[in-house]
């Protein structure tokens, strides 16, 4: 695939955390391309840097060095408000612990990104209804998150992630807090979205779920490694 079709390009991406006297290299020289419409899984052991990578991909954090190009635009050094704007329009998040806002109803949770976008109420209503229909939660629109099961909450979170029609869905262990049945259901939902054309980047440590993706990126000690390398590193 040619350079101009890549949705996400990372070049030499590095992230270093500084605490009092300790320097921790969470990511070291990551090179990565994710094409539009691709379903990518990122896996690796705990502490390998996959969540940090996802945070940078989602513009929740910025790299210490390197380049991040999203939709042909370099985004690694945007200011806070520009990053917030891109998060709102280009990125949909699905978290392990759902992160629905307890005070808001299902509908209001899904509506929230559109509210931040300044969209008119009538359009918000139509879009939310559509998103909730897509995840099968329209009948629970007026419920509070606490009145839903874990699986239902994650479906609402998926609706919230896709309601803004983002360029990419970033899922951080989306099944981590679910039982296997609900986990499978959410994975089916993501698969469905992917078949509809969505670009998905999913962090998971569960090989069963990684298999749903087109491609799996393995990480170890802040670097992207291939499967054979994993075996040798683990030996």
């Amino acid at each position, binding site marked *: 695939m040619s350079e101009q079709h890549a949705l996400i390009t990372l070049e030499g991406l590095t992230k270093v955390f500084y605490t009092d006297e300790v320097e921790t290299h969470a990511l070291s020289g990551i090179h990565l391309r994710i094409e539009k419409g691709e379903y990518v899984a990122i896996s690796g052991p705990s502490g390998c840097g996959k969540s940090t990578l996802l*945070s940078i991909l989602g513009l929740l954090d910025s790299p210490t060095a390197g380049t991040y190009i999203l939709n042909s635009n370099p985004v690694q050094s945007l200011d806070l408000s520009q990053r917030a704007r891109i998060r709102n329009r280009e990125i949909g998040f699905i978290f392990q612990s759902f992160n629905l806002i307890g005070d808001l109803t299902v509908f209001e949770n899904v509506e*929230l990104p559109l*509210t931040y976008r300044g969209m008119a109420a009538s359009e918000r209503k139509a879009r939310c209804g559509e998103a909730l229909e897509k995840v099968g939660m329209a009948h629970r629109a007026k419920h509070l998150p606490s009145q839903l099961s874990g699986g239902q909450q994650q479906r609402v979170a998926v609706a919230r992630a896709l309601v803004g029609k983002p360029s990419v869905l970033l899922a951080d262990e989306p099944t981590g807090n679910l039982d296997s049945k609900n986990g499978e259901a959410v994975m089916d939902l993501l698969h469905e979205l992917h078949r509809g054309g969505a670009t998905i980047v999913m962090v998971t440590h569960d090989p069963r779920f990684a298999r749903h993706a087109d491609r799996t990126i393995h990480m170890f000690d802040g670097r992207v490694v291939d499967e054979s390398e994993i075996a040798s590193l683990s030996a």
Partner: protein
Amino acid sequence: MDSLQTDVRHALRALRRAPAFAFTAIAAIGLGLGANTAVFTAVHAFLLRALPFPDPERLVFVYQVNPARGIERDVTSIPNFEDWRRESRSFTAMAGVDTRRMALAGGREPEPQALTVATVSASYFDLLGVAPDLGRGFRAGEDAGEHPETIVISDALWRSRFGGDPGVVGRTVRLDERAATVVGVAPPGFAWPDGAEAWVPLTASPQDREQRGALFLPVIARLRPGVTLEAAQADMRRVGDELARRYPRPNEGWTADVQPAHGELVRDYRAALLVLMGAVALILLIACANVANLLLVRAAARARELSTRSALGASRLRLVRQLLTESLVLALAGGALGLGLGLAGLEALRTLSPVPLPAWVELRPDASVLAFCAGLTALTTLAFGLFPALFASRAPLGSGTRVAGDPARRAQRGFVVAQVGLAFALLACAGLLLRSFERLSATSPGFEATGAVAARMRLPDTRYTRERRIQYADEALARLRALPGVRAAAAVHTVPLSGIYNDTALRLADEPEPPADQRKVAGLDSVSPGYFEAMGIPLLRGRGFDDRDGRDERLVAVISETMARRFWGDRDPLGRRFVVGGDREVEVVGIAGDVRHLGVAAPARPHFYVPFPARPVFNLSFVVRAAGDPSALQPALRDALRALDVELPVPSWAPLERLVSQDRALPRFSATLLASFAALATGLAALGLFAVLAWGVERRRTELGVRLAIGAAPADLRKLVVREGVGLALLGLAPGLALAVAVSGLLRPLLFGVAPVEPATLAAVALVLLAVAGFAAWLPARRAAALDPAAALRAE
């Protein structure tokens, strides 16, 4: 607008789901704003609102002043006043305004009624810009005679004594047994000078018009348009200096000064009101710090929600707006509560105020007060909401901002330290006022107030010649002394602490006439035999008066201890003489204990007493000391005087204890009010400390669980938390001490016998605060000690 509505809706819902937090925050803000609203209303009513007259800024008081003797304000005499009026160029009008008790007969009541009557220049109503509701004010020339022939009555008197009869104008009444025509009824609420129930022209006998040394007359004036205060002051200095040259006796050393009327009227209230305003401002700061702390705790608990919002595209500004909207909702609820509490507090102030409010003060909230409350609410929102909002919005989910320490916790501790410091300063100020009041209460006025009552009379000059006045006093005292249960009775010109004080210049008989600025001045009272016994004033040396004193040419006096010490030093004053009134020699026959005539807080001044027959005044008081409860005697006392002259108003007898209590009332009120505010501040600071420690225990559950797992006893954890609480309080003491020392100087005008910085008070306040901090830490400490280590570690 749509998103603002959404923010407000979310804020309301969020607060509804955290009722304990919302209640605590709204209560703290409400208390802070309520105290500020109440005190600001009082400050506004006294200090900021203009006097209720047209062009009030042009109203001024004119004083006699004597810079050499340090007298910054004094009343004047009729001849000086008339010269001022004639020779000054700065005023459209100038009026003398005196008040006296007079007997009014007429109207629907058969009994004569004692009234507070203002004797005013004919221009008085025009000068103030007040038009009577019925009839007219005084005409030029009506103040030229010897006795008032016209009277303007107050609206209240018109209703109570004349039944609101619109035909009252033109009716003749008797005032001190002389006919006077009612020419007007003042507008409702007009009672200026304070307490006036009626107004008569300022008349005077030809002799009084010549007595340039008889200082009794307050003077008010209205500046001409365009004339500045400074120009008027220079003008009056010129007039005053000229009068001193023209009439060196008694004007030598005296000149005249002009001061804005409003500033003068509020002079006695300013310090106390500003101290109270400062106190409630500190309370609001503490409340803000408290709510900011609660918001920080809440923000920490909502970190995930805020991070999620951020991940969904909310900018930092948007998050700050959301959080500030919640703060605004809290502040509005707190503001509404504060307004309610403020109005209730205002009513309480009005009810509990130990002295009646001046007539020109309207203690009511108006648009300015509402604007103040609204402005303060907005300011409060920023004060307590902005920092937590900025703080909470700055670290979204997944942030790599992993810095050492915990800024939220540091900020919370900082807020607690600030609260303790502010509470310390307030407690220290309250402590000073309480100690000051304690000293004041322990200070004797110089007489024994318990068991004695006094009544004030005025003998009309129509019937009461000099001899008749002496005779009346003799007969009245004989009747009073004959009553069962009366241990002693006496007559006196003015009872101490009654607010009336006469002084006179004198010189020692064996000394030459001193220069004007070195003349001796002493208070003067004429008293009957038995006065010192009736008042419980100790007679230290010599003798008191007997029935023969004052009835011949030989004038004797009993002097006060201070007068003896200050004027004669080491010499024995008994048998020595001094000269008053230019040539009248007075022999000292006794020395009495000092009496604080002007108030317990004012130092005793030189004072002397002469026998009543030597100076038989028209205004006199009777003092009766009872063998038992004096209140039981009152009907008999009233009847005894009534039977002596049925034409005189029936006097009311009041316990001397009431005079002493009234004298201490304002200091007691100020100290109580400030102590209440300090208690509130301490409570809020304790709440803040509690919140931080409780949150700390919650946040450190795992750490505490680990401590327990490796062998810490519950008591160790209790100590850990209490030590942290007391440690924070200790940290707050240092800035609190600095603040207390810095602001305590402002209290100086309110203190009696206490230095603004008192180590003992500061130490006591520190101990109180540390004890409160220990108590506030105890509940979180108990919670820490009761922690189940297994559960705490599982949660991790």
